[in-house]
């Protein structure tokens, strides 16, 4: 039974159709990349899945539960964690505190108004583990606002991981990084995904990154899925080439 | 004497000096407080804020009295010391300042609280502070009715008394149909209610009433209501900025040509602020420098020498109030509340407004009621209030502890 299943998911903004009958299934442990030119609806797809935006039509099932239309904080608590295209962190908190607050969100008594030593201890353990996985232990005590851009992107992934999600949505994790920083980040991500067998939905432009990380690829064009399959098959598909390379009608 | 402003810098300098003197003065000797040393009178006044002009008048009135009295050797041979502080019209500041005067500077005599809301906040504390408060400007009828406390006295004309004077005047006037516009404020409701009772009692037609919130800037809806009502006269219970705004806008609508304006208070400051828009206004006055009485003539001359202008309403009222204080202290031979309170009860003095008798039963100063009309007079470049009728004190003062009148 697939972990995440989208069927006929549509999103209209008045006349503009941002998502057009999108069907998509992601198996547990699979790294699925979603690619497409700008404006293809990739970020809207993320927003619909995480509940930031309500779909106009269609069904979304996650781990057997229908989640279309639920508020974003509920979907997140079901085990769907995400990062953002534009880095979103808590600048004045240290890297560890950022991850700790993320981990605390899963705790049953996250809102306890007093004490909380035990809750902090558990959350901090998860945070340290996630930072370790992403190679960020060295900078755990530095304020997030003062980290390098590369480290900030990885910290966002670590925060998502600290929540022990079932599926991880990465929105262009290497966006805005230099070539050298991208390679370093991709190496870390590849090692990390190998080790954790985490199910990932990855939005990415850089085809090298996609082919290094993704098991399967879905291509979006003008809100519709035009191709779906293994990386090599998709690379050869004429419609993809037309949409991507030549025939911009 | 036209609309130019009084030089406030000089006044501030005097206050600055007086204030620094009192702050620097050695800590008051607790033991010998009552019988020797200066007689301290506290004035927590609204010197700034919306009612700043009233507070400033009270200050000038009290300062001149103290200057004249100290020149004559003070009272009972003791010099008078005024403790003047600014409350900015805020009851919280007023209670705190008054408490400081009582507790830190050992002053047991209070006067000159500008707003009724401030007075109502201070009055319940008088017993605890063992202090006497003689009001010189608060018009709220309840202060001498249900909210009366033994240590409170009122030397000034109250709201209901002013309204009563207007109603007595209207009995002989040919105006038949009346409307009323008051501030949505205890004093406003209080006086309009008395006016309504009085007009119905004198078989005249009371068409209706409306209340405007304090701080209203556009009075056109209320002017339209008055015009609509078909009344021949409208009774106004407004003060300060609201009064100035209404009178200016009413004149622009030519309302006075159709409806006679009657008001519960006429004072020079608002006449100066609106100029000719106040011409023809008829109303009761708490004090007018045009009232011919030997003591008033003497007071006006004294005032002209000091401020080279004529005294206004609250300067006259404050002067009279200090005269009551003076007489009370002399009669009691001291300033302790226990002796001063009985001395003040039933005391009678001759003041700038003629005879004033502090009634024993509700501590209200029984005094004449005046009706004035604002007219152009040679020798003055702004209109002045001319006294057109006076009514004896016992007719204009409500029956004991009430706000109603026996007829």
């Amino acid at each position: 039974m697939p972990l995440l299943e989208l069927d006929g998911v549509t999103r209209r903004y008045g006349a503009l159709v941002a998502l057009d009958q999108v069907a998509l299934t992601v198996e547990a442990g699979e790294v699925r990349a979603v690619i497409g030119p700008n404006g293809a609806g990739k970020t809207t797809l993320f927003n619909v899945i995480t509940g930031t935006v309500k779909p106009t039509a269609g069904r979304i099932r996650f781990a057997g539960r229908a989640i279309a239309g639920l508020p974003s904080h509920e979907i997140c608590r079901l085990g769907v964690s995400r990062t953002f295209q534009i880095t979103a962190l808590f600048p004045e908190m240290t890297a560890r505190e950022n991850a700790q607050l993320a981990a605390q969100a899963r705790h049953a008594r996250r809102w306890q108004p007093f004490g909380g030593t035990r809750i902090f201890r558990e959350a901090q353990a998860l945070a340290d583990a996630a930072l370790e996985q992403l190679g960020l232990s060295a900078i755990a005590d530095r304020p997030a606002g003062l980290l390098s851009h590369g480290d900030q992107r990885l910290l966002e992934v670590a925060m998502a991981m600290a929540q022990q999600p079932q599926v991880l949505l990465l929105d262009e994790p290497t966006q805005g990084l230099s070539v050298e920083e991208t390679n370093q980040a991709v190496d870390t991500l590849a090692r990390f995904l190998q080790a954790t067998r985490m199910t990932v939905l990855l939005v990415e432009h850089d085809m090298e990154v996609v082919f290094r990380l993704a098991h399967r690829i879905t291509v979006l064009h003008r809100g519709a899925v035009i191709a779906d399959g293994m990386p090599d098959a998709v690379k050869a598909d004429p419609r993809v080439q037309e949409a991507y390379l030549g025939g911009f009608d | 004497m036209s609309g130019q402003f009084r030089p406030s810098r000089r006044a501030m300098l005097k206050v600055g000096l007086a204030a620094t003197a009192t702050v620097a003065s050695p800590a008051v000797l607790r033991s010998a407080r009552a019988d020797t040393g200066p007689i301290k009178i506290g004035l927590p006044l609204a010197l700034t804020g919306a009612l700043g002009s009233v507070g400033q008048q009270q200050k000038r009135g009290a300062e001149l009295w103290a200057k004249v009295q100290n020149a004559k050797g003070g009272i009972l041979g003791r010099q008078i010391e005024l403790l003047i502080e600014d409350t900015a019209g805020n009851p919280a500041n007023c209670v705190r300042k008054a408490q400081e005067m009582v507790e830190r500077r050992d002053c047991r005599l209070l006067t000159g609280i500008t707003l009724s809301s401030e007075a109502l906040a201070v009055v319940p504390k008088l017993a605890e502070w063992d202090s006497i408060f003689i009001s010189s400007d608060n018009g709220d009828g309840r202060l001498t009715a249900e909210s009366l406390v033994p240590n409170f006295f009122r030397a000034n004309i109250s709201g209901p008394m002013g309204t009563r004077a207007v109603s007595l005047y209207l009995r002989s006037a040919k105006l038949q149909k009346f409307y009323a516009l008051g501030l949505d404020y205890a004093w406003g409701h209080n006086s309009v209610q008395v006016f309504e009772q009085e007009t119905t009692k004198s078989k005249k037609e009371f068409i209706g009433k409306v209340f405007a919130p304090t701080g209203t800037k556009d009075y056109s809806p209320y002017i339209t209501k008055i015009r609509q009502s078909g009344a021949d006269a409208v009774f106004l219970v407004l003060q300060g900025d609201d009064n100035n705004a209404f009178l200016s806008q009413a004149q622009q609508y030519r309302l006075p040509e159709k409806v006679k304006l009657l008001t519960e208070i006429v004072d020079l400051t608002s006449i100066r602020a609106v100029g000719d828009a106040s011409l023809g206004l008829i109303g009761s006055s708490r004090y007018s420098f045009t009232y011919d009485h030997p003591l008033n003539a003497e007071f006006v001359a004294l005032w002209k020498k000091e401020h080279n202008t004529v005294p206004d309403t609250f300067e006259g009222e404050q002067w009279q109030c200090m005269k009551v204080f003076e007489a009370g202290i002399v009669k009691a031979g001291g300033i302790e509340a226990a002796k001063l309170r009985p001395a003040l009860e039933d005391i009678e003095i001759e003041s700038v407004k003629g005879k004033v008798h502090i009634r024993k039963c509700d501590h209200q100063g029984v005094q004449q009621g005046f009706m004035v009309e604002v007219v152009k007079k040679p020798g003055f470049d702004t209109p002045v209030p001319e006294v057109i009728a006076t009514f004896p004190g016992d007719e204009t003062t409500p029956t004991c502890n009430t706000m109603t009148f026996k007829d």
Partner: protein
Amino acid sequence: MSTFGLLLSQFADALSQSALLFFLGVGLTLIFGLMRIVNFAHGALYMLGAFVGYSLAHWSGNYWVALAGAPMLVGLFGVAFEFSILRRLYRRDAHAFLMVTFGLALVVGEAVRLTWGSDALKVAAPPALSGVIFLLDEPFPVYRLFLAATGIVVAVAIWQFLERSRLGLLIRATSQNAEMANALGVDIKLIRSCVFGIGCGLAALGGVLAAPLVTASNGMAATVIIDAFVIVIIGGMGSFLGSLIGALLIGFVQVFGNYYAPDFALAFMYLVMLVVLVVRPGGLLGKEA
């Protein structure tokens, strides 16, 4: 008075009140739109405009000199204040502006009292505007028609200035994205000084025009600041058109409301504000703050 005559004169009243409220609101909105600061001193500048107008009219004997001079002088004062104090606070968070404008309100309020005294001062409308015209058998002050007319003229002038003129374009650009505008070579320091000056000038214009109705008095500042906030919130913080709509809405609600239901006079404005904010939290034309 026929009902139609009544409605006509109330409509004219509402227009004149909306004009006064618009002058207040548009200054506040321009300043907030560009500099994201809520100017607590706006009421004090409105009062300063009335008193400066009084002195100019008294000195020159001519209301028109006051009408032109007061906004100019107060505008210059605004520019000087922005240049000397506000300019050093742009890297700081919003608290700094809150406190500085609160301080400015206290300073201006007291300076007015010290200079002009605590008594209210008469500012007479010019003879030409003191007359009355008859709207269907009811006298209506010419001055209020003049107010309504000035409101429309100034509204169109500001609209054209923002839409058409080069400085207007730069102001709108800096409002949307100050860093980008700066990067494109726009001297945003100058723009901010101009806008703060214009905002203060407009508040003063409101003060001078209101003086013949309410006299120049110390109590003006406190009562008027709430009206300015309400208008700008209803219209949408930072939206010029929003402040126009907010002024019209409140002008009509007050004039008709106070006539037909005087008991609710005090609460009308806040009820309208609550309804608008609950329906559209950013205000009618504001972008989600």
